[in-house]
């Protein structure tokens, strides 16, 4: 609950601005092959970045307006909005993220193929926006997904969105094929899907929540110690019985001679 110490706040800001100015590291600058390759690689990725056709709330209307005649996203090679996450490179989170919706969003994100980017459009997706205090509102999609560019505004005008997309292009251009995470073995990029409980919870935070609801030092029962367990959905008894009945009938049918 600490209020902000202005000096520290300023410092933090400056650091972050510096960190935005990513440059090609010295050891890579000499590597002509990689840098040339990078250029081609990034140019092609940047010029045909297909967004996911995915609208959440009011901001989606402005997103549609951006894609429509007046602003014409096809000038950026982005007119092909793909409804399938498998075919898209960019998720524009356009609108309020609610707790009920966020498991679906994380699932969609997990289904997108690398390299993938997330652009958070509007105050709501960025930090909860005017609905931040709401009981069903996630205060920013960055609570669950890594976000590449934030576009503030409520709603951001189409120009503001395009400016955000151009920022993203810049970011893409600074990446190097030798360093990007998605060609490395250890990176999976998988985000555990949040679960709807009495309130939504992130499987990554189970230990933290246990400590708070069950008291200090509530030991984990899972042997892995901090390892993420994905909860299975339990079927209720009558569903199980039904499934079992179908299965037996099916098997019986199979066994019958034709």
């Amino acid at each position, binding site marked *: *609950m*600490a*209020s*902000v110490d202005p000096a520290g706040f300023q410092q933090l800001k400056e650091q972050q601005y510096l960190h935005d100015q990513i440059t090609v590291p010295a050891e890579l600058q000499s590597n002509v092959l990689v840098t040339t390759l990078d250029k081609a690689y990034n140019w092609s990725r940047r010029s045909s970045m297909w967004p996911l056709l995915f609208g*959440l*709330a009011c901001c*989606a*209307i402005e997103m*549609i307006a951006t894609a*429509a*005649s*007046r602003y014409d996203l096809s000038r950026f090679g982005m007119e092909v909005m793909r*409804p399938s996450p498998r075919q898209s490179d960019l998720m524009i989170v356009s609108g*309020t993220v*609610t*707790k*009920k*919706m966020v498991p*679906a*969003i994380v699932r969609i994100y997990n289904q997108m193929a690398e390299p993938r980017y997330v652009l958070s459009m509007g105050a709501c997706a960025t930090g909860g926006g*005017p*609905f*931040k*205090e*709401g*009981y*069903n*509102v*996630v*205060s920013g999609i960055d*609570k669950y997904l890594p976000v590449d560019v934030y576009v503030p505004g409520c*709603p951001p*005008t189409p120009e503001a969105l395009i400016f955000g997309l151009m920022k993203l292009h810049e970011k893409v251009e600074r990446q190097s094929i030798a360093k990007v995470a998605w060609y490395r073995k250890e990176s999976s990029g998988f985000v555990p899907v949040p*679960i*709807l*409980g*009495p*309130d*939504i*919870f*992130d499987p990554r935070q*189970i230990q*933290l*929540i246990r400590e*708070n*609801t*069950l008291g200090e030092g509530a030991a*984990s*029962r899972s042997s892995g110690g901090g390892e993420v*367990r994905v*909860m299975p*959905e*339990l*079927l*209720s008894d009558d569903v199980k019985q*039904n499934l079992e*009945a*179908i299965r037996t009938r*099916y098997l019986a*049918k199979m066994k019958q001679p034709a």
Partner: protein
Amino acid sequence: MSDAVAEAPVADAAAAEIDASLPYNNAVPGAVLGRWAEESDGGLIVAADKLIPLMTHLRDKEEYDFLSSVTCVDYSKYGGKLRAGVSERFDTVYHLYSTSKGGGHVKLHVRVPENDTVPSATAVYPGANLQECEVYDLFGINFEGHPNLRRVLLWDGFNGHPMRKDWHEAYYDEDAKPFKSRHPAKGYEFHEDKLPWGKNTTYPEGWDPEDWREPITYVPVSQAPGHDELGELDTESIVVNLGPHHPSTHGVFRMIARIEGETILALEPEMGYLHRNHEKIGERNTWLMNMPYTDRLDYINSMSNNLGLALAVEKLMDIEVPERASYIRIIMAEFTRVINHLWSIGFILNDLGALQTPALYAIEEREMILDLFEEVSGARLMCNYMRFGGVVRDLTPNWIKRALYLVHERLPHTLDELDRLLSGNEIVKARGKGVGYLSPQDLIALSISGPMIRAAGIPYDIRKVDPYCIYDRFEFDVPTLPDGDIYARYYIRLLEARESLKILRQALRDIPGGEVQGLPAFASATIEAGFGTIMGGRGGYSFRPPEGEVYQRIEAPKGELGYFLVSDNKANPYRYHVRAPSYINLNGLGPMSVGYKIADAIVILGAIDIVLGEVDR
């Protein structure tokens, strides 16, 4: 009905003596226990066990066939304590209208003690379905006899009923805005730091996340007719889930359909994916703060949402609106109607498979109207333009000239072009004619409103039957079509847009000059002392309407938009409820889709014309 209700002290007292001077007590003895407030309020307190007979009487004998709104008020903190003269915590409120007689409403109150049940109105008005689900979800009131009472906006397993006054969320600051922490001493506070997990979530004490299993939400599509208990494998019907992420659900909406082959046996809407707690936040806001929030209800038509709230508060406080402001309001409301209808026509076509091109043509002119909105209000979508007692700023000098050009030249041209392009198109006809039919009686019973019922031949338009603002001054028709199918729903929107242009032409012609009316030319407290407020003077941004309640409905482009407000003479509304047309029109989605193909269900949804900000609020 339930024994518990019969034992309630009030019901007992009523059974003892029946006051025959109260309305309807002769027809349904003992139904009405008393008046809710003074006579002008019109509210009647109804005995819970007589609610159904009374409603039946009202529907069959008094022609009150349209259940507009069902909602609930938690009176436990009225003016800080349980409301005087109310021994029960909750009060469910019903507003009934007549589509044949027109005119005002009958308002019924049923008092409900905590943990008690009310008989479900679905027995008389099937349209109460979704609204009762909402009340159950947010207040935890049980409706006995409801066919499918479930949590619509939140999910099964959610802890508590958030609209109760004693329920607080994780980022809870105070009961009412403005919060004291913002000024003058504390400094910025990152809300995420409030809780150890950095999110606005709370978990009940003693709850163990490792033991948690998601309950499986059962949607009774399995009770569909023709489904023979999973008997034969080869004719087995399957459940198909569409959404919440689906390109043709117009946002984050989910449909669960049981289909056999491609034919729909049953279909159930599932919403809440954009439930943004509009009402909870609205009850914490001051009255004025709610204005920009209404923009975000039906985010395609922010102007008409503004209008609804402004009218409701004006009715509550009895405020006079300058003539010119009324004209401006009507101009804005009708422009949004044109926008909305263009938008929905475009996207019906999108759903029919004519991807993008017709939609692009349809929303082209929208940009020009948005330019006009931006010119006066400063924003394209979230206009926040109206205020209680007027509008925030006068029009800009050239505005009317530009609007006239649009109304006389561009928009008629666009509508004609769309008409030419689409109305005779074979695919639109083949896919639209005869699909998604529902009889006028069913539509009314399901509380469906707006273009949907006018496409089924019911000339019910609030601008005509229960005029508000200054609509009674304009000459316009209420177009109707007899068919009640998708094609009619598409075409009625074209016709209505033309009628809107008619109103616009008259309003732009008749609008009185700005100088006479003294609307503020600039929204600035220094220029205009007490600007934008009703009382004038400093501090006018927070005012206290007198105690009372009000229900104001307007003919929004999507149907009947109602605001139900309860004031306890505080700076914040005690209860703030929005009767959202999109939400209630979804009552019809299931019945309309049954028997058609799954591809038709998409268009049926498109032709209802929902917007999720309003469905889920």
